[in-house]
């Protein structure tokens, strides 16, 4: 609970700083805000660490079952922390360029992370629902944060409308689950389902509707359609945060849901997830092939990544779950890295949206070899090629599929790696073999960007070359 408290309090303070500071947008004030946000994260990290030590593999239930802190939750919380840290680090300069330096931005990031905390720890429908809304509402605002930009407006509105629609469905589904179990505690619901009729139509309906809402959050096909638009329209750091933090949190929730209360219904949802996973990989990969907008391309690719992660759940054995955890971890660093390179392309003076096109990175390798090389590392990792981190994630997924006899799925999943490399390497091709674009943007990096880049690159390479401690961590975290 402490991390959430830290996040919430720091978040609220930062959120309200805007009013306190008023119009005096001095550089000092901005630094204060930034510093405060980072302090918030530091405190959170400290509390997480403390909890980790205190927990020692046990599971703590608090607030009469509303949340439960365990290794699983903490694992995901570290991921959220990384996501917000990197986002904050790269946002500073980005917002400066966009002229939208508001304290709310940082506050919302912290509060969104607070929401994520409850998604990972929540064991009660109400907690989950409210936590989800906290995260979602923060994101709606963050996506639309560039109020002067129509793309940002539209992205926010689309995301909002669909998001609200899905949470309305989720509320409906939750109400049915409540009706079946007579309790909002996940544990009770699980017990009730196990004891009751597995073919109860109300239960099935609740399962279907809830599943849809969850799949919406992880942007799995066919509930993915908000993602490309929202990713493209959002400010790039928010895209990064959204694609990583929101997805990781939703996966934490998804795992909790499908393993605990809905575990008994495995026979019912497994085929659905198979279909959704295959569709996600297919649609994500295929649509990405012809994209020219980098953020949109990454959006589609992240849809396909959702498919891969779902495969781990389809397999459903320990390897699969560990695989999802590792995959999420790897994906976090990698996707953050890729998007932060895109964010670094943003420079003052150019019209918005023009730095995100494939044409704009043409010849980047000559102008900025380091960024280009790092981008290659991230793309390789996204594609899942050794010796980058991405491979380790894919490894577990493939292995879990083979262990559970899903050979056909494994073959499909592997073949899509080849498709993926095709579009990822369109970016590489442009960077290394394209003529330098005339109006191509120059990288204007800040300390924050460099630090963030350092974190993500180091993680991507280290996890690729020596994943042992990370695997150990994931394993311990999932051991329950």
């Amino acid at each position, binding site marked *: 609970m402490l991390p959430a408290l830290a996040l919430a309090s720091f978040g609220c303070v930062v959120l309200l700083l805007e009013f306190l500071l008023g119009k005096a947008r001095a550089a000092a004030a901005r630094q204060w805000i930034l510093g405060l946000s980072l302090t918030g994260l530091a405190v959170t990290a400290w509390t997480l660490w403390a909890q980790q030590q205190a927990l020692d593999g046990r599971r703590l239930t608090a607030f009469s079952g509303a949340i439960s802190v365990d290794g699983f939750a903490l694992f995901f919380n570290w991921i959220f922390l990384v996501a917000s840290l990197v986002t904050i680090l790269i946002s500073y300069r980005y917002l400066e360029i966009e002229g939208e330096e508001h304290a709310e931005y940082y506050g919302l990031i912290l509060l969104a992370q607070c929401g994520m905390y409850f998604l990972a720890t929540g064991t009660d429908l109400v907690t989950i629902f409210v936590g989800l809304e906290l995260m979602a509402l923060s994101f709606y605002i963050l996506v639309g944060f560039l109020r002067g930009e129509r793309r940002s407006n539209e992205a926010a509105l689309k995301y909002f409308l669909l998001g609200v629609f899905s949470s309305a469905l989720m509320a409906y589904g939750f109400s049915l689950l409540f009706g079946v179990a007579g309790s909002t505690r996940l544990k009770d619901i699980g017990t009730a389902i196990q004891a009751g009729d597995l073919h109860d139509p109300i239960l099935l309906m609740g399962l279907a509707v809830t599943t849809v809402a969850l799949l919406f959050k992880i942007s799995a096909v066919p509930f993915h359609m908000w993602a490309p638009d929202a990713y493209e329209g959002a400010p790039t750091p928010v895209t990064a945060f959204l694609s990583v933090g929101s997805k990781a949190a939703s996966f934490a929730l998804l795992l909790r849901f499908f393993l605990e209360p809905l575990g008994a219904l495995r026979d019912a949802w497994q085929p659905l997830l198979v279909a959704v996973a295959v569709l996600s990989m297919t649609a994500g990969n295929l649509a990405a092939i012809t994209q020219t907008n980098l953020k949109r391309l990454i959006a589609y690719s992240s849809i396909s990544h959702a498919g891969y992660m779902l495969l781990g759940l389809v397999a459903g054995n320990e390897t699969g779950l560990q695989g999802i955890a590792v995959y999420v971890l790897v994906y976090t660093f990698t996707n953050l890295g890729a998007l932060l390179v895109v964010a670094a392309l943003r420079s003052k003076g150019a019209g918005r949206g023009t730095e995100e096109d494939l044409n704009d990175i043409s010849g980047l*390798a*000559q102008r900025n*070899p380091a960024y280009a090389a790092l981008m*290659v590392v991230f793309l*390789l990792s996204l594609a899942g*090629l*050794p*010796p980058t981190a991405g*491979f380790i994630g894919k*490894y577990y997924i*493939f*292995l879990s599929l*083979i*262990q559970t006899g899903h*050979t056909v799925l*494994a*073959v499909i999943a*592997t*073949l899509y*790696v*080849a498709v993926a*490399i*095709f579009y990822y*390497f369109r970016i*590489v*091709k442009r960077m*290394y*073999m394209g003529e330098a674009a005339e109006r191509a943007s120059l990288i204007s990096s800040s300390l924050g960007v460099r630090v963030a880049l350092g974190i993500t690159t180091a993680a991507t390479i280290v996890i690729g070359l*020596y*994943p*042992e401690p990370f*695997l*150990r961590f994931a*394993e311990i975290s999932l051991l329950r």
Partner: protein
Amino acid sequence: MNGHLLSILLFLPLAGLIPLLLIPSDQKRSLKLCANAVMLAGFLLSLLLVFQFDAAAAGYQFTENAPWIPSIGASYNVGIDGISLLLVMLTTLIGFLATMSSWSAVEDRLKEYYALFLILQTGMLGVFISLDLFLFYVFWEVVLIPMYFIIGIWGGPRRLYAAIKFFVYTLAGSVLMLLGILTLYFQHAQEYNVYTFDLARLLNTHMAMGAEQFVFWTLFLGFAIKVPMFPFHTWLPDAHVEAPTAGSVVLAGVMLKMGAYGFVRFSLPLAPHAASEPWVVNTIATLSIVAILYGALVCLMQKDWKRLVAYSSVSHMGFVTLGIFALNYNGIAGGMLQQINHGISTGMLFLIVGVVYERRHSREISAYGGLAHVMPNLAVVFAIAMWSSAALPLLNGFIGEFTILAGAFAANKLWAVLASLGVILAAAYLLWLYQRTMLGEVTHEINRKLRDLSLREWAIFLPLIAWAVWIGVYPKPHFDVLDKPVRAIVERVTGGAR
């Protein structure tokens, strides 16, 4: 130092990356010197292996084993036997020569160029010395990336297409191969309750036929695309033709060997039952023979010098796979030796195209003619390469192909008959190429001014020629080192009992 000789050899190129990256990009000479020095050091170091290798000992030598990712059972497990020894030597030599051949051929983005070559070198060495399937797979994939860039950045006009085709094609094969590896890994774990990628332990796995077939065919796809076997060969002409000379040399000289090496090191021992089923053997032998004849026939129609050499690789590698799937001593030993031979002779042929291309910037056969008048030394070298490739006795190619044919003959006489037709065709297309480029009067005035081989270029060719003659005249040391591992494999595949 000797305890870690392989590791030093493996990571030397990577270590060389550090000084290389520190040299400013505009100091071209220093960059070249640095890269060449590292490669040379690697080659000299690898000579130590030769002197310390004990051909009489069974099993792997220079082994090193350290835990790497214990939670999945992957370890840093390297070592070499005779088969790997030859390939390691080929890699260090060809790598060095290819680097040296780029001295004046490549002038832009030098730093990236040499850096990629160094990474490539580590990757290739890693493939040949890994005794852990996970490690092997990592290196296997690592090799792809620098080659993609080498083709894509410094290649010919259609380099982008060729590079991505090469990449996606071979990647598709290798990810399927990963599935095979994982299946094996899982099967082993089911039997022994231990998750490990250690080759030696995986060899003890007993699989049901279905699983073994799956393992075999997924591995097969990965390797066959790399070799490349008909009908997976179409990435090869594009990649070879578009790659810069050094790229083609390494591609043909070393990278194609990874596929056949995979067959011998992994496919046969790990899935011996599946690999020795008659229909499997027949299918693969048929594909090999088709590749031999088909590659040669296609060669006859080529107008592009480099493309011709590229297709000849398809034909020659067909011999290698035919030998391997003859599943007897001669076939496999010959196949492994032929790998080296192909590396030498095709490497030389590509280097020759490179020498000419560097001076004249054309690969059209019709742009040449009568070069023997202006470049007599090149003509001599070309002739030796040609005869080596056309399997003239007392040169390396003969030893390899003859032994392979002996293996094929013992397995199925018809194979030998059909494959031997490839020998005729090889002579035909190579001699015709020679005639069109080297003989006759000088057909283009511009060619009269071409320089003959420089000292540096001689230095590149001489070691290859020497090796070619060595194998041709006295191949025994090579067969000696191959003897033990090949016998072990044959016994495993045909012995039945595991």
